[in-house]
């Protein structure tokens, strides 16, 4: 099923990207051709195959570290790159309900 402009806009919205009309027109055929290409995988019968979620070769269960506090960043360091630090917080605009 070929991709439509509506699909592209929907996906962009999910990813918090808002594309211009020009970008949508440019991306549509590119994304469509890539998605068509990856259909190739359907040539393979994988019904008996377990999905490979972990790559770590021969890994047993991951070994978790103990629950011990360690030194971490001070608030000053943590805020050093913040676009809008304020009183020790990351300041952001208020959350507004989107009108549909």
């Amino acid at each position: 099923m070929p991709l439509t402009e509506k699909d592209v806009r929907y996906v962009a919205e999910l990813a918090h990207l808002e594309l211009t009309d020009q970008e949508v027109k440019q991306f549509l055929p590119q994304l469509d051709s890539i998605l068509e290409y990856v259909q190739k995988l359907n040539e393979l019968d994988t019904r008996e195959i377990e999905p490979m979620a972990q790559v770590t070769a021969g890994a047993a269960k991951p070994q978790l570290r103990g629950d011990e506090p360690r030194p971490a960043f001070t608030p000053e360091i943590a805020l050093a790159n913040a676009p809008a630090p304020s009183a020790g917080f990351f300041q952001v605009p208020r959350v507004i309900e989107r009108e549909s």
Partner: protein
Amino acid sequence: MDLTALTLESIREALARKQISAEELVRAHLARIEQQDHDVRAYLTLSPQRALQQARRVDALIAAGEPLPALAGVPTAVKDVIITRDLRTTAGSQILRNYIPPYDATAVARLEAAGACILGKTNCDEFAMGSSTENSGYFPTHNPRDLRRVPGGSSGGSAAAVAAHLATVALGSDTGGSIRQPAALCGAVGMMGTYGRVSRYGLIAFASSLDHLGPFGRSVRDVAAVLQAIAGYDPCDSTSAREPVPDYESRLLEPIRGFRVGIADEYFQGLSPAIGDNLQRGIDLLAKLGCEITPVSLPHTDYAIACYYIIATAEASSNLARYDGVRYGVRAGVGDGLAEMYRRTRNAGFGPEVKRRIMLGTHVLSSGYYDAYYLKAQKVRALITRDFLEAFDEVDVIVTPTSPVPAFKLGERLDDPLQMYLADIYTVTADLAGIPGISVPCGATRPAADQPALPVGMQLLARHFEEARLLQVAYGFERAGGFGV
């Protein structure tokens, strides 16, 4: 003595004999960067003070007659997806153009503990997404062998720096071939270890199950020495392998006579003579060195690109969700509220390839498509991995071309993203399986009589945690003149 042409062995000797100082070595590289880098454009950010301070520490050790750490004084470049404390790190993106990390990546800390002098941060495709470094949010890097051509990607800056003598060694990252392919296109040695061999702590994430850090150098020994310094368990990376790290350098000289070398037919079908002829000469040399050349089959090779571009983009869409203008990076205006801030920031900060991949990844993970794409790709990944494990029952290493083409011209491949993706065919398989791989120079090819010869790369692959074996074969190949076949 041209200080920028030295490799590690010569540096160690020259420092030990006090023929040069570490400070002279660093200054020579900084001077060459000033002269040459406006043509090559390997670097995004330079760190001369950091490099010189480190050099002085090394010189103080020498003056005190103290033993030197393994990479003492070595001028090193670091790909800009790897964070460096107090030194701007951009991931090749405008969205991080002002980002100053508060900590070092583990690999960086280990390099500096070993005495390496970090000259600066190298250019790359944005968030490591690309095969030519043309997707950098800043400018493209040029191939030192022919400035009209790409250095490959995404670690194009690191590969070019080493090839152009603007650093002795460099760090890069490899998710679908981003160390091995630019090494091939620039005529350098580039290596990726087993997944988990080198800590990813401090590597700006692209695709977490595929990302690796690894070294570039002009000789196999240099690459072995850097890998030695950075490899090994790191509690800060939950995927870090506890497998002990052998002494790679001391194992380089072990004989390779009798090694079984696999040639996978699927990697040589349709290969142009420009690449194929060089690879054949390389394989012939390995045979002459006593390796047993054996055909093997990796039947699912043809599905690797589709598999990779589903998994990598899916993971990228998740990893890049953090660039939202809240805690770091640029914030592109507030607008109506939080959601608009996210959109404006990401629209302004990300380039087109990044947007494309985020959208692909979002789509393949979205409700109704997850099973058809992502889950399916994970199953195919298991098949590709199984191909390798079965092949490695028959052979010790597998030899393939690294890239189907030599360095192409800047701008030549920008119109069709899918065509660019298809050129990754020989490298993505190793990332999918998590096995180690190395690319070594294997002669050159001349596109026309009046044009510069372009490097060709030969890739060697081995089973998980058999980096030492790869390095042995590569080293034997180098010593027998393989780089210039």
